[in-house]
């Protein structure tokens, strides 16, 4: 019996040991082999707060801040603490009713629980802030929280400076490991984008312990793992904000662009694009609404035409054509061409403004009179250069020149999304003319006068002026001259802007002849009615043929003639004469830059010019429709009509037009058609029905 009981006591003890062993086993499993619980505990309790440093400030060339930070205040509420608040008075201050108050409180609770703070009213106006700050003691549970936001004090240079936006998942995937988190802001365009790393500074991280309801209980490990935030560094740009403002003002009510560069350094002085927008409309709470509006706007205010717009340079290209021939040794400045008012050597005549009188008896005069025949001829000489086996080889050499001039390649300005525009390749022409080498210089002769398939951005056009102003070299255009506390990385990045690009081996004396020709343009040529008070300047007008609507006015210039400090290009879309519509913009900007002020007369002229409306009718119609209540109905009706029209008349056309004629008023058809049009149209420059256009097309 005793032995039996002894064994039962053993059994009980064994049960104890077994159960304790099981518990120990589970403890080993939980505490030693499962690392996930540690992570889960950290996720529970450690709240990582990212401390955002102030972003760097962007200065213009006179050390004026053109993009800075301001403090705005949000009114925050902790609903559970706000029960004793003086509702009526707060509502009166905020100009809301108590129903709205209740609604916002409920929203806050749903969003962020009642014990954590949520935004009650974001971005208070300064007056409201002052009033609230005075009375905040009456509103327990409400806090004024400061927030640093970007501010553009001059309301200008939107396209250059860019904007901030919230990062999306694609961005996060691309820049993984760079410390971005959902909800962060990053530069999405302009300098904000290019210099994001410099401007953003270094984020700090503070770790807090939070409890089961998300309330912070104090710092984690007394801040041992915290990092401090380092403010972003400032950028010093070459922008002259007053010139920039004037440029934007002059381009008001027009579609186009103006770029001014200091040829000595390649620093951009002003870069305007129109239509534009007030950069302050893309910050804070209004960002979402305005961004959508701008994105859908048919005139595309978010498009920086200075680096993305592609225009045929027209006559402004002519001095370059001369340069190529000079550099190849095909002509000398005294080379002349006997023009009788048209270039007829290739069959269809290319018309010229002037006839006879020896207006192309040498390079200088040919430039001054903008002789089409002369430059078509010179271009053909370059392509048919006997040094090369065939015209294709000659053309390739010519194209190489264009690329070294910065045409057909992106220049590499420090703004995102620069277009390279177009200098067509031989393969393009092989395709156009149905086979390899089935084209001659005659087929593409209008390239010599900046037409055909050649396009350039306003930035590239301004850069061409730099080459001529500098007599043979340029610096890559750039906006940022220097960075505060420049690091080795920064220097490496900026090095390309400090590199001189020699592009020709033409003597300075020859360049002087070209410059003289361009000065003649401003003395007795197409720009003779435009003056820059106190300075001699050189210019070349252009009236670029384009297949959609009126000609683009192009104007390129540099000044002063003897010691150029500003090179400029202006394009005004669908307006007409280069001298008439683009010229005043350029000369006024040069005057502003060189004299630091405008004369009374000039100021008056600027005022008048800014009110001139040159927006194409199609775009105006779009705005009208958008504003109209009848818009929807009308559009539907039109769609129906169009469809019926298509079915009735145009059954042969299987290619559906995929563009919206309202959104792209300059486009008549899809791409292929457009190019065909160009080929058809450009060789016959006077092939227009409109009488007025006939006049325009004779390329002054």
């Amino acid at each position, binding site marked *: 019996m005793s032995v039996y*009981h*002894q064994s*039962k*006591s053993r*059994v*009980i*003890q064994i*049960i*104890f*040991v077994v*159960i*304790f062993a*099981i*518990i*120990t086993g*589970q*403890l*080993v499993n*939980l*505490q*030693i082999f*499962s690392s*996930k*619980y*540690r992570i*889960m*505990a*950290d996720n*529970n*309790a*450690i709240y990582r707060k990212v401390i955002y440093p102030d972003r760097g400030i962007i200065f213009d060339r006179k050390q004026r801040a053109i993009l800075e930070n301001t403090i705005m205040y949000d009114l925050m509420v902790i609903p559970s603490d706000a029960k004793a608040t003086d509702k009526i008075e707060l509502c009166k201050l905020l100009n809301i009713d108590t129903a709205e108050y209740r609604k916002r409180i409920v929203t806050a609770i749903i969003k962020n629980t009642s014990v954590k703070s949520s935004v009650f009213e974001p971005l208070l106006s300064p007056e409201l802030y002052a009033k609230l700050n005075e009375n905040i003691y009456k509103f327990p549970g409400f806090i004024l929280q400061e927030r640093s936001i970007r501010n553009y004090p001059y309301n200008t240079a939107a396209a250059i400076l860019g904007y901030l936006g919230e990062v999306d998942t694609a961005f996060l995937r691309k820049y993984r490991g760079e410390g971005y988190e959902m909800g962060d802001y990053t530069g999405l365009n302009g300098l904000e984008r290019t210099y994001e790393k410099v401007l953003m500074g270094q984020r700090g991280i503070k770790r807090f*312990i*939070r*409890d*089961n309801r998300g309330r912070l*209980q*104090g710092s*984690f490990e007394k801040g041992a793992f915290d990092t401090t935030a380092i403010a972003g560094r400032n950028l010093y740009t070459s922008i002259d904000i007053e010139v920039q403002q004037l440029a934007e003002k002059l381009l008001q009510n027009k579609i186009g662009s103006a770029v001014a560069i200091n040829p000595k350094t390649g620093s951009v002085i002003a870069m305007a694009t129109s239509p534009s927008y007030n950069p302050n409309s893309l910050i804070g709470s209004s960002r979402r609404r305005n961004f959508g509006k701008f994105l859908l706007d048919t005139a595309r205010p978010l498009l920086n035409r200075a680096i993305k717009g592609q225009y045929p340079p027209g006559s402004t290209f002519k001095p370059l054509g001369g340069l190529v021939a000079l550099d190849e040794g095909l002509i000398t400045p005294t080379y002349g061409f006997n023009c009788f008012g048209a270039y007829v050597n290739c069959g269809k005549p290319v018309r010229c403004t002037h006839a006879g009188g020896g207006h192309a008896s040498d390079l200088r005069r040919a430039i001054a009179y903008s002789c089409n025949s002369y430059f078509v001829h010179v271009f053909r000489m370059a392509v048919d250069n006997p040094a090369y086996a065939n015209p294709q080889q000659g053309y390739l050499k010519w194209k190489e020149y264009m690329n070294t001039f910065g045409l057909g390649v992106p220049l590499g300005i420090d703004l995102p999304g620069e277009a390279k525009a177009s200098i067509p390749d031989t393969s393009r022409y092989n395709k156009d003319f149905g086979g390899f080498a089935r084209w001659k210089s005659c087929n593409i002769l209008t390239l010599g006068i900046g037409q055909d398939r050649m396009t350039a951005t306003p930035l590239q056009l301004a850069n061409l002026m730099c080459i001529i102003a500098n007599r043979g070299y340029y610096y890559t255009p750039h906006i940022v001259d220097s960075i505060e506390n420049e690091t080795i990385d920064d220097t490496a990045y900026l090095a390309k802007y400090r590199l001189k690009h020699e592009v020709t081996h033409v003597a300075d004396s020859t360049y002087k002849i070209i410059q003289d020709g361009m000065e003649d343009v401003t003395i007795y040529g197409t720009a003779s009615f435009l003056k820059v008070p106190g300075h001699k300047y050189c210019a070349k007008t252009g009236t670029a043929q384009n297949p959609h609507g009126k000609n683009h006015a192009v104007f390129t210039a540099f000044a002063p003639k003897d010691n150029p400090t500003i090179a400029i290009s202006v394009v005004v879309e669908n307006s007409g004469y280069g001298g008439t519509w683009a010229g005043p913009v350029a000369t006024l900007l040069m005057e502003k830059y060189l004299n630091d002020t405008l004369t009374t007369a000039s100021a008056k002229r600027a005022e008048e010019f800014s009110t001139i409306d040159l927006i194409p009718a199609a775009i105006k119609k779009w705005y009208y429709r958008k504003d109209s209540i009848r818009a929807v109905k009308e559009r539907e009706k039109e769609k129906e009509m169009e469809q019926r029209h298509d079915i009735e008349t145009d059954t042969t056309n299987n290619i559906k037009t995929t563009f919206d004629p309202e959104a792209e008023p300059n486009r008549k058809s899809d791409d292929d058609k457009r190019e065909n049009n160009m080929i058809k149209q450009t060789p016959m420059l006077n092939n227009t029905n409109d009488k007025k256009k006939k006049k325009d097309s004779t390329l002054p």
Partner: protein
Amino acid sequence: MSHQYHSMRASQKTDYLIVWLYAILVAIGIFCIFMVEYNPNEDIVQSFLSGKTNYSRQLFFTGLCIIAATFILLSDSKIFTAFANLFYAFGILLMLATFVIGDNINGSKSWIRLGGGFNLQPAELCKIFTALALAKFLSNQETDFTKLKSQAIGAAIALIPAVLSIAQQETGLALVYASFFMVMYREGLPSIILIVGFSFAALVIATLLLEPNTLALILTALALCIIYILRKQIKKQKKILTYIIVIWAVCVGIQRFAVPYLFNNVLKCYQSTRVYSMVGKDYDCSQNKHTIANPTKAVRKPDDYNVRQSKIAIGSGGLLGKGVLKGTQTRGKYVPEQHTDFIFTSLGEAFGFVGCFTFLMIYLLLLFRIVRIAERQRSTFSRVYAYSVVSILFFHITVNICMTIGLFPIIGIPLPLVSYGGSSLLTFTILIFILLRLDADRQMVLR
């Protein structure tokens, strides 16, 4: 034997190891509650004395317990044998009284308000009385525990308070009375009952884990295997085959009908959910009778928040723990009821595996020591009582710790001597010190 001499002898013979272990555990308890409630903005000394925090109240309860323990040690051990049945009757009466004068605290109507912010839970005290009554019954010379009738009476003594507890919505406390079966096993209850009990538990868990059909197939296959192995014996004795078939039928019946009935009709939705969540499954409350009966109550999604947070707290402690007052789970109050039922989590987080293991060893030492004390008694009464104490302690420790580490569904029973709570602390103090008092008189044969 003068009174003075008697008390001196008692104090000399008291088992001081148990007293030390008791003191250590109570101290650990107060310290753990302090870790849970610690507020860096308060002065520690002041808050310990203020009586406003739970740890200061626990300290106060400890004082009460010391007084009670002293009284017990100074008392005559014959009182306990003499009044065992009377105590038991009083306890049952108190429990019945709660149905009339009880107050609803924490969802169970098992408390009697004493005033001054203190409440009494008769079901707690009843553990002591049941232990005494069972000891009294089994030590009776007329009781022959090998007989079925005696076994039934013994079981009834243990089960009456359990049934009353269930009626008071205190399932956890009711389960504690199951621990008396261990005592009865020691006193002669056949082993087969324990084996059947364990098998039943294994079958219930298997039912939860496996698909009904799969389990039925496994059981059938198992039965066929046994028949094949025992085929020679079966040829000799046909009875064995009948036994096997009956056992198989009962198993399948349990698995098919009894277990679903238990979860859908006996247990409430939240209880079933807890059991299911322990094995990592979701329980569909819409099948539960109680939810069907009260459709107004929204069927809540099964939530294992408590266990998850408890496991995170213990698991994040690692090998050596995060250190005193550095546990983020504890500081952030992520574990609900951490000062009472989940007190073990604060220990696990602060001291890690090493701390937990040491703590468990203290408990194991206490249990082994009590078993040893039990076995050295000459009196059956003392032995049975000692086994009752060790069984109750063991059951509490096992269920409570297993629940915090996710091995057992959540049942609200405290960790002995450590969890916050005056009733619980007082009950265990009285249990242990009566045992010490009886042990001091082990040379006497008590009836």
